[in-house]
């Protein structure tokens, strides 16, 4: 029984990370209508920034916040310099840009920090006594942080005028301009937020999977499965999907297919969703108005 509880809780903990990455994917998808293949690599790059800061003696939480801010800025700059010129170009141009970004960040990380695996610190050591053996301190901390972050993002989108404008710009750029929204700034803000979400996710998963330039590969597969499961159109769905995939991954890994086949499970989810309900559980089918 304690085993199941343990698998469930650690599934929710990693699920929070998948949910964050899934949300980042959806946010970019809503404005570009493409999956940002580079999201994971950008996040890894952020984790390296945190690693450098922490190695230089910066306190963990200061490094954490700094990394978020730098990543936000980097995301906004990428939108400005690389994605904006893609507007109005054929779809293949954006896909090419995403793949280019993926290669760029991957090799940049490897070139600057090397390809050998590095340990990444966690600020949550030791497990709270009442949960000993059920959930580790890092899992608990990681769950709390990703959950708090997702809640903040939710409140931002639902409760603030800026969040409303960001949603409006993603849904309907033309109408947004007609109410005076500076749409390009909103897109840059969206990219910044997605990059910041990715940075937090990467810093939370790095102590578990260890830091290397390809660290986020597996995570991205689960995140993508989660986003598709919930609906690539639906931020809320993607977050739920991310948590669901985290739980499924852990339970299936422990009791069903074993750890070797866990990644296959993610692929299986992706394929099943694409076949059975391409718009995802909470997403709407993409309709083109004529």
């Amino acid at each position, binding site marked *: 029984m304690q085993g199941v509880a343990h698998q469930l809780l650690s599934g929710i903990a990693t699920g929070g990370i998948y949910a964050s990455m899934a949300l980042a994917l959806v946010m970019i998808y809503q404005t570009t209508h493409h999956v940002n293949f580079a999201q994971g690599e950008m996040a890894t790059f952020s984790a390296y920034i945190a690693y450098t800061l922490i190695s230089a003696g910066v306190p963990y939480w200061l490094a954490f916040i700094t990394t978020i801010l730098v990543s936000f800025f980097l995301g906004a700059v990428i939108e400005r310099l690389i994605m904006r010129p893609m507007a109005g170009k054929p779809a293949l141009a954006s896909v090419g840009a995403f793949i280019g970004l993926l290669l760029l960040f991957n090799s940049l990380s490897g070139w600057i920090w090397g390809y050998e695996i590095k340990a990444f610190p966690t600020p949550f050591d030791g497990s709270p006594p009442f949960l000993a053996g059920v959930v580790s301190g890092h899992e608990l901390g990681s769950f709390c942080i990703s959950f708090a972050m997702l809640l903040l993002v939710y409140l931002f989108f639902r409760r603030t005028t800026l969040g409303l*404008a960001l949603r*409006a710009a993603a849904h309907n750029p*033309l*109408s*947004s*301009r*007609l*109410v*005076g929204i500076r749409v390009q700034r909103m897109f840059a803000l969206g990219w910044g937020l997605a990059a910041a979400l990715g940075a937090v996710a990467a810093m939370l998963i790095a102590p578990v999977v260890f830091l290397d330039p390809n660290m986020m590969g597996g995570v991205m597969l689960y995140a993508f499965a989660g986003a598709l499961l919930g609906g690539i159109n639906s931020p809320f769905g993607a977050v739920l999907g991310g948590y669901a995939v985290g739980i499924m991954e852990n339970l299936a890994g422990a009791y069903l297919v074993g750890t070797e086949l866990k990644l296959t499970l993610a692929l299986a989810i992706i394929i099943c969703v694409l076949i059975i309900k391409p718009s995802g559980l909470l997403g709407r089918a993409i309709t083109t108005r004529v």
Partner: protein
Amino acid sequence: MPPLLETKDLRAGYGDLWVLHGVDLAVRPGGFTTLLGANGAGKTTMLRAICGMVRTSGEIVFAGERIDGRATEEIVRRGMAHVPDGRGTFLELTVEENLRLGAYTRRDRGVRPDIARMLEYFPKLQPRLRQQAGTLSGGEQQMLALARALLLRPVLLLLDEPSFGLAPLITREIFQIIGSINKRENVTVLVVEQNANLALSIADHAYLLETGRIVMEAPAAEIRRNEAIRRSYLGY
């Protein structure tokens, strides 16, 4: 008094094709001007050109400033609201969110009272505030589009075929509301319309567009009186 909006030799088009071939148009402040013309004459393109939504050449002066070549959102921020072809509603968002977006550029405290006032103009929207805008009926959507545009507190309101897809009775109601907004709120109106008879009964000045050129300009009442003009240009 100088015109609130003036275009000089305005050309506009899509790709490398011009649709407007040198339009001179002036809108008097406080006036209710209508732009009439057959399908494909270029009426929608004219409104898009004024708002910087299509490629243009020539001059556009709004409130004493050149606005040609500026970004749509910057033109809107100078006080020009546009209810475009297709209404420009955020269909996925709620009615209330659409209204809040209408006032997006405003930071004053008057937004809430203004929303309340819009709900007095358009009481049908009141019970639907939390409903997705895409689920409104055509008439309700046109009302929402008008309310959204007015919440910008515009100096100039551009309307593209407010009668589109609506029953004659609702069309008349909408035009009467636009007429009273024009007078009571001191908003200058430029409206594009297929229903020439209705537009002329409420407007004070009219332009006639034919394949991208202005072929006639006159006080609305004059056109209404002159059967020869109506027969040859408006077909009624």
